[in-house]
């Protein structure tokens, strides 16, 4: 809260700096703007940047590092008390201290050492905040002074401001790269720790998945087997079912929209289909779990087939419905991109419309359609909520769509939701699964985008 006030104050000061700088620039030439090198507003921005930017950067860095520093200092203060404790115990102690410091409820009645540490924690935090405020104030006033001193008619304010703005634009565009790097690094780092405990070959090729690790050495059950093949197979099964639903329907819908429908019909159907893509996946999950699943089980019972209420079929079918618009709108685009001359040529030879589509247009747009299907597959593999709500939890190596199977995303969610200790193989396994998921979808996307782009170039 205090930090928020500090930032607002800083922003207010920056605004003040802008107006003051502007006024000073105008005053320096007694109001005749033509004598300034840059417009007065650039002088204002010049001062504002000097005033606000360094302070804001320092505050941001400070906030990132302060917690860590404070905790380190607190722990070193009680170094005697924690000597011989394991890392887990220390982190537990630390969270107790933190809770005490913020006034939350603690798990146990605190020992005097913890109480003292909490006091120190609060003190250090307060000190840190005071130091940060001091640093910010010094930087803003220093910046203000420096910026204002520099103002004179010949100051090249515009080029300097523009250079900084360009730098900010560049930094903004790097954030996307940083996100990717962050994803890769965090997945690799945690997976690496997982593979320190579990053999990667066993993970990739083992047939037994039961990630319940024993908490105590003498516990029964929970052997912790991490062979992910059943999980991959389940993902594959549900994806295949989804594709069996989505590809024919999506493709035929795209063909109809591109080749047969009048512009009015098309303008009605296309947005209507896109509604399917706009519905949140949790809604599909609810629908699959509550309506489609029981429906299939009822149907199965009436013909004497044992259908699990969390069958792969229900989840796959609903996922297929969700994916229809991806297939249809991408295919629609590629079919529309086929040059009219190909159609005209085929029709002129006497082929019917459907013959033209099947023999000429589809082969000509095959690249694009394959790309669309690959993108849809990657979407299906990464889809989470439908399978979390409608598919099973236990890994089951089967190709029978009427049984319950589990998927990579379901396992990630079940392993990470709820109470967790961060170092166990069980939670780390989720990151290994996430890494596999990321790599597979990345490969599919790269191939698909390349295929689509290559195809586009062919007719451009």
């Amino acid at each position, binding site marked *: 809260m205090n930090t928020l006030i500090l930032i607002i104050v800083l922003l207010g000061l920056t605004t003040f700096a802008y107006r003051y700088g502007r006024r000073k620039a105008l005053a320096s030439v007694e109001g005749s703007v033509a004598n300034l090198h840059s417009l007065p507003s650039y002088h204002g921005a010049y001062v504002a940047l000097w005033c606000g930017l360094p302070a804001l950067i320092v505050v941001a860095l400070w906030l990132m590092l302060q*917690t860590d520093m404070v905790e380190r200092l607190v722990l070193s203060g009680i170094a005697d008390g924690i000597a011989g404790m394991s890392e887990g115990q220390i982190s537990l102690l630390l969270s107790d201290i933190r809770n005490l410091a913020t006034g939350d409820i603690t798990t146990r009645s605190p020992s005097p050492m913890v109480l003292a540490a909490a006091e120190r924690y609060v003190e250090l935090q307060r000190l840190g905040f005071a130091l940060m405020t001091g640093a910010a104030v010094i930087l803003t006033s220093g910046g203000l002074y420096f910026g204002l001193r520099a103002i004179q008619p010949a100051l090249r304010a515009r080029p300097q401001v523009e250079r900084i703005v*360009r730098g900010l634009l560049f930094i903004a565009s790097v954030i996307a790269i940083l996100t990717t790097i962050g994803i890769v690094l965090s997945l690799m780092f945690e997976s690496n720790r997982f593979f320190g405990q579990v053999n990667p070959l066993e993970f990739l090729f083992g047939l037994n998945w039961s990630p319940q690790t024993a908490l105590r050495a003498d516990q029964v059950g929970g052997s912790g087997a991490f062979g992910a093949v059943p999980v991959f197979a389940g993902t594959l099964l549900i994806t295949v079912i989804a594709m069996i639903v989505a590809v024919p329907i999506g493709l035929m*819908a795209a063909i109809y929209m591109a080749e047969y429908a009048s512009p009015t019909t098309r303008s009605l159907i296309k947005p209507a289909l896109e509604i399917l893509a706009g519905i949140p996946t949790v809604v599909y999950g609810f629908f699959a779990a509550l309506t489609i699943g029981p429906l299939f089980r009822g149907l199965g019972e009436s013909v004497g087939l044992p259908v699990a209420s969390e069958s792969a079929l229900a989840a796959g079918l609903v996922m297929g419905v969700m994916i229809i618009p991806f297939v249809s709108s991408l295919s629609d685009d590629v079919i529309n991109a086929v040059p009219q001359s190909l159609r005209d040529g085929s029709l002129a030879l006497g082929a019917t419309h459907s013959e033209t589509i099947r023999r000429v247009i589809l082969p000509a747009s095959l690249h694009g359609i394959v790309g669309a299907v690959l993108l849809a597959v990657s979407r299906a593999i990464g889809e989470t909520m439908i399978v979390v709500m409608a598919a099973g939890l236990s890994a089951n190596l089967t190709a029978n769509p009427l049984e319950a199977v589990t998927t990579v995303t379901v396992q990630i969610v079940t392993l990470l939701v709820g109470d967790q200790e961060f170092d166990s193989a069980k939670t780390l396994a989720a990151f290994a699964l996430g890494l596999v998921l990321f790599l597979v979808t990345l490969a599919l996307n790269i191939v698909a985008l390349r295929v689509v782009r290559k195809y586009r170039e062919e007719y451009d």
Partner: protein
Amino acid sequence: MTDFIADRAATRKPDFSNAHLRKRYRAEARFKLYGIAAIVAALGMLAFLLGSIVMTGSSAFTQTEIALDVTLDRAQIDPNGTLDPEVLAKGNYRKIVRDAIRAQFPDVSGRRDLRELYRLVSTGSDFTLRQIVETDPGLIDTTQTIWFKSSADIDQLNKGAIPRDVVESDRRVSDAQIGWFDKLSADDRTRRSFNTTFFTSGDSREPEQAGVLGAVVGTTLTLVVTLILSFPIGVMSAVYLEEFAPKNRWTDLIEVNINNLAAVPSIVFGLLGLAVFLNFFELPRSAPLVGGLVLALMTLPTVIIAGRAALQSVPPSIREAALGVGASPLQTVSHHVLPLAMPGILTGTIIGMARALGETAPLLMIGMVAFIVDIPRSFTDAATVLPVQVFLWADAPERAFVERTSAAIMVLLAFLILMNLAAVLLRRKLERRW
């Protein structure tokens, strides 16, 4: 050799017969029918989905209420007559409500029967009564007819969701409860009124006291963070990539990277949030701040791609004219190109935000699945969002939560429709064709 050619010519001779032509036309009609069937199937599923949700959800907007004649006995509430708020808050309202129920059915006795009888009204009734007394202490020592919410099971019975004709042990209301309820109905002491609780309270274990307000506020806080981060950063990187970046390997890499990032499964962003924001930076779990950060990273590629498309559609003549009269490149962009591209960028942003609004999986990873009764008040309070609330309620075993889940979905869809409508209107109104 000649035989071979003659053979081929014979097989390739076109079949001009009417029968063959009819066959081809039939194939044509069939093919067209497949197309129509595909569209009908897709739209049929959409209608089925929406229909089933509206069917199950619409009843959650009403709530059964039971009228009881409550005697607000001073001895139970404020024995010393001080009207001190602290004393009023501690009154024995439960006993008053129970006495009022027993007054309706004086002949019921026995602990088990009485417990069933008390279960006609919601367990939150004492709280309702307390609030009434606290707002108007003058009511003490009078007898009032007050409408109390019925319990969720009675509510379901009244709405017909619990069938009366099954064996008693197979339903959640007993025969005796049905009898009492029917008697109350016959006395005109029951009604169905608009369920305001659903819109004004947070989550609860009791279906009749559960509402979506906490989730709606959580969603709003989360989306504010998402918007504050993803919009400026997205626009800035779109401007850089489209207007200033030199065309080289490095920018190619950024471009490929952004396209791929847009297709990364959302749950992977959740893993990123868990590993980086929670475990590395130690930000609070379940907080809208972290949820907003994760969703912002997820929405960023959408905003950048939409922004670049919008910037591209601004014709070069605008830039040339501005540069021609002496504007600097940055002035050209900020004074001319960006304002003209803004409608397109805003449309893309709204669509990206709509996607973020419906997103659930990454938020599960950062702990926004907790059961939270309080309505969040800041960006660091524990909160949940609408889609996650749907997920939580979908897991709840009570029958009454099914209709509330559907109703929450309807609220969620209403927000989505509003946002998409805004995007469409914006595009219609502001977008310029060059």
